[in-house]
Every structure is written in C-alpha cells, then in structure tokens.
C-alpha cells in the first residue's frame, strides 16, 4: 500500500470508530435516563415499558461500544468505554442527556429521538460498514415499537386534559432547541457520509418532520419555530446534566475499579 493509501485507510478506520462511538454513546445515555424511571413511573405498565425501551437501547449500546473498542484496538472493552470515560469524551446527542422532567417531558424526548432513529436505522442498513448495517436492521424493528409507544402517549397526553396538554406542549417547547443537532452534521458525520458509512443527515430531515408533524397534529400540539443554533453533544460539548448522569452511572466502577458481578 502506498503512503497515501495507508493514510486514507487510517482516516477511514478513525471515522468509523468515532461514528460508532457517537451512536453507542447516544443509545447508552438515553438508556440510563430511561432507567431512572424504574420504580417511579406513573403506572406499572409505563414503568415496564420505559425499562423495556431502555433495555433495547442498552443492547444497541453494548454492541456499538464493543465494536468501537475493537476498532480502537487498544485493548479497551465496552465496559471501559461506558464506565471509565470523562464527560468530555462522550459524543452523544445533547437531546438524550436532558433530564427526565415529568412523564410528558420524557415521552416527548423519546418521540423526537425514536423518529430520528427510525429514519437513521432505515438508511444505516445500507452502510458500507457491515457491522453497523446488521445492527441497524435489528434495531429498526425494535425502534418501530418504541415509536408506536412514544407517539401513542404524546397523542393521548396532548389530546387529553388541559393539564396534560399544557405539559406536553411545554416539554416540546423546551426540548425543541436540541433537535437541530439531529440534522446538523458534525465533522465525523460528514466524513462518515462521504465514505457511505452513514447516511447524509440532511436526508433524514423531511421524513422526520413528516412523522413528527403527524403525531403533533393528532396530539393538537403546536410545533415550535425552527431554531438556528445546533447543540454540540456529538462534538463532546455537553450541558452540566451529562456530568451528573455519569457520576451516578459510573460510581461503582470509579469507587471499586475492576469490580465484577
């Protein structure tokens, strides 16, 4: 291999690693947020449902972080990546680290991300990275159920009582500012799209809008105005909320390094 070709292969491997890590972090952090509901949801059924969605996301995260660790080739494992990195090393979307708030807030956040994952996984099935394509095909089927669950609740609450409607509208108004990041490509997103590892994020926007518009219409909730600023969670610039989340999630491994079940 020529020096240029070798360099190109290295860049490729680095892009795949960073893109995989970004997807893995997004699933992991959202799973941790949903896990916070266990024992606290408004009804037992919803408690189980949020835990089940979280479990699917943990499954995605384990697969993606294991693959990222393998790509990195430094002997780290999925657990090292999850439990021993600093907040400034995490590249999850800012949306998923936002606190749960009330049930309406959690379910609106879930709707926004479920619709995004549906469109992402649909396209990721044709990734040149076969490991990502395989996971996408599997995760897509599970995400359809997640979306049906979150969309169903947004409609019930939005088109419910005055109180539930107000809370869902407020949650949407509050979380909307984090949606621009879903479609604003980072450097890694751009490189991954160029190598056909990932879809072009811009192509997700209009089908995502169509899904969200339909749910909001049924929920009688008003879509907020577009936002100009994109948050930068995937560039490892986070709100203070991520540090608190990680402090809890990583506590055991930080306190008892190497502890195993």
């Amino acid at each position, binding site marked *: 291999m020529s020096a240029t070709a070798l360099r190109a292969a290295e860049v490729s491997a680095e892009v795949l690693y960073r893109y995989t890590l970004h997807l893995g972090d997004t699933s992991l952090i959202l799973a941790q947020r949903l896990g916070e509901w266990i024992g606290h949801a408004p009804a037992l059924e919803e408690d*189980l449902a949020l835990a089940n969605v979280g479990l699917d996301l943990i499954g995605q995260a384990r697969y993606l972080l294991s693959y990222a660790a393998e790509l990195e080739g430094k002997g780290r494992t999925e657990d090292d990546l999850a439990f021993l990195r600093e907040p400034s090393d995490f590249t999850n979307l800012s949306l998923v680290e936002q606190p749960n708030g009330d049930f309406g807030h959690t379910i609106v956040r879930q709707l926004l991300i479920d619709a995004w994952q549906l469109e992402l996984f649909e396209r990721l099935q044709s990734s040149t990275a076969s490991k990502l394509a395989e*996971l996408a095909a599997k995760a897509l089927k599970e995400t359809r159920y997640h979306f049906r669950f979150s969309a169903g609740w947004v409609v019930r609450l939005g088109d419910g009582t005055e109180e539930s409607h107000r809370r869902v509208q407020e949650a949407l108004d509050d979380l909307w500012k984090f949606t621009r990041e879903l479609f604003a490509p980072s450097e890694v997103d751009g490189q991954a799209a160029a190598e056909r590892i990932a879809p072009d994020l811009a192509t997700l926007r209009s089908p995502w809008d169509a899904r969200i518009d339909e749910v909001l219409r049924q929920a009688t909730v008003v879509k907020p105005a577009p936002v100009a600023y994109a948050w930068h969670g995937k560039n490892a610039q986070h709100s203070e909320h991520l540090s608190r989340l990680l402090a809890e999630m990583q506590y055991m491994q930080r306190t008892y390094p190497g502890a195993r079940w």
Partner: protein
Amino acid sequence: MVTAAGTSVSSLGSLTQREVWQLLTGVPDPEIPVLNVVELGLIRHVRSERAGHVEVGVSPTYTGCPATEVIQHSIRDHLESAGFGDVNVVTVLSPAWTSDWLTESAHRKLREYGIAPPAHSVAQPRHLFREPTVRCPLCASAKTERVSEFASTPCKALYRCIACLEPFEYFKCI
C-alpha cells in the same frame, strides 16, 4: 461450508449434526421455560471444525434481552455434559431474528402456557402498524384489548380479554 484454510467445517457427520440439534431441544428458554431454544428459532447453525468441537450460532431475540447470555451459557453446559469437549457459542445478528421463526409447536405451547402467540407473519412490514387480532389464550375470544406495548419481557405486550376479563401476555410480532 469451507473455511479460508480450505478445511471442511461440517466434519460433524450428518448423524451427529442431527444429534446436536436434538440435544438443543433440551435447552429451555429461561423466561418462557415451556419453549426450547430450537422452537424459538434462536439456533442459526451447528457446525464443527475438528473432532469433539461444535459451534452453535445463536440469534438474540431482542438486542438487549438479558436472557441471551443465560441461553448461551445453558447451551454450552448442555452440550458439554453431553460429551462435547470443545463448545463454541457465537452470536449471529444477521439476518435479524424474527417471530416468524417460532415453530408451530411453539405457537401451540405458548397458548397452552397462557401466552398468545404472534398473530401474523412479519414478512409484510406494513402489518406492524395495523392492529392484529389477538385471541385470548384462555377463552379464545377475539375481543381483547392491548393494555401496554411492553410487558414482563421485551418480546411481549400486555393484553386484557374483554370476554373473560383475564389479563394475558402476547408474544409480539417482530
């Protein structure tokens, strides 16, 4: 099948292959113990690369299903106690597991166990967003309603029978 090195990977005789599949029917699912791992469609392949060695490919039902690891351990234990000295259990993600792989006997056993089996094939994805008719496993009435999309395990939803008023679980189509 042939490996890169050119050696046969199916050196288990067909008789032994059948024996391994037969042995695997003795490994129950930890969550739904009336079903074994073969009926659930979890076993994707059985092959061997050398004497005493056997590799079993297992598909997880859901990506995060905690039963997956238990199942893989059970398969290893079961084959080792049957005399295989070199057992390798690998995860097969693609093609993704589907409820279409549940056998006829699995459908029957689920009903007898009180769980409604998947109501239709998912080979047609458009069916996913249409409400399936789920029959009550206890009184067979079609008058049932979904209480929750998720139940005690990721693979099931929670239903209620309007005719006999009993709650029951439904094994989802995926």
